[in-house]
């Protein structure tokens, strides 16, 4: 499983035409546990900086992450 930590995020209210149906939607940059960063989208609950996330799916090359609930 691909895991990471939210480095930054924003919710987009004024999207390009292609993404009008999705708005508002959350965009994020994730620092991957295995190194490097990727730009992607969020599925489900809103995420915040430093939240743990997991890769939920890949849609045409765009990674979609969701909040990871980790036992503490």
């Amino acid at each position, binding site marked *: 499983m691909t895991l990471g930590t939210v480095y930054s995020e924003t919710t987009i209210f004024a999207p390009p035409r292609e993404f009008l149906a999705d708005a508002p939607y959350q965009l994020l940059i994730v620092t991957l546990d295995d190194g490097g960063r990727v730009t*992607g989208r969020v599925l489900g609950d809103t995420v915040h*900086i430093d939240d743990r996330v997991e890769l939920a799916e890949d849609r045409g090359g765009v990674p979609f992450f969701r909040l990871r609930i980790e036992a503490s």
Partner: protein
Amino acid sequence: MRPVAVIGMGKTAFGAFPQKDLRALAVEAGQKALADAGVAPEQVEAFYLGNFAGPSFVGQSHLAPYIAGAMGITGVPCTRVEAACASSGSAFFHGVSAVGAGLYDLVLVSGVEKMTSAETPRVAEILAMAGDCATEGKAGATFPALFALIAKRHMHQFGTTREHLAAVAVKNHANGAKNPDAHMKKVITPQQALAGKMIADPLTIYDCSLVSDGAASVLLCPLERAHEFTSQPVRVLGLAQTSDYVALDRKADITCFPALQAAARKAYQMAGLGPDDVDLAEVHDCFTIAEIVAIEDLGFAPKGRGGFFSFDGETAIGGSKPVNTSGGLKAKGRPVGATGVAQICDLVLQIRGEAGERQVAKHRIGLAQNLGGSGATCVVTILGGVA
């Protein structure tokens, strides 16, 4: 490199001008710059044009000779430079480099963009092409969204607030209201800025710069010949262009622009000056957060304190370090490809003491900083009056 001077400047007003096409705007600015120095078009030895997306916005390519020809400049090298928002900053860098290297004496550098004839969603799509279309674009990132990511991280690490961002917008609107050529001459309150329509959280419409038409031009020559053309030459003391990855997620730290820091270091070194020597600056406030990061990267405020510095009024016209006395991209306007040369024009006005109601008291040394995309191109210029 031999010393280079700006001997003439000209710009159009910035705004929405349905009756003026791209060429008419560029010709107006270019002719004003030539007239300012009393130079005829036939004397121009090379023309550099900064333009981001003329082919996409207005369906015309081959823009440099297209515009030069309309001004009566023919037979000489005419080159278009594209570097997103830093297109004309880069054109200026190349023009100064050519004069400095001794290739030419009289060089015209212009920037132009005609944006308001396109529908808003199309404008957003064209602007997004300044990012990495294969990753950021595909994920649905807009240009405001990239700077919103920067803002969120900056707020998280340094305690920057939305009130700090709003202070930048309020200050630049106040300055724009003093600039007869500004697109937006409307004073706003912090409450208005904070209550603006959300574009990409935390950035509201008031954190975003405008979509404008406009052009700006400067005429260059070797410093040793400057007095043939003007009694008030402005010398290029320091100049650097740098680059970085286009994609924001490739940067180790998005709360700064490494290319900006590098360009600043080089320009300061070339000028033999430091941040404290700069009397005023025009920085690239495509978004309010970009001005906050810029004043940190340029050394005007310590890292992480740019928001506080702005909120405390230090960057106002009467402050310790006036920034964007023209109104900046926020209020003066943002015809993308014209922004870099327009900054030079505004500094020339200030250094000459011709900035009218927005004139600052100390105006010997001015710094311009032009940024392309989310920091992949940066140009820093330091200008000074010639005693």
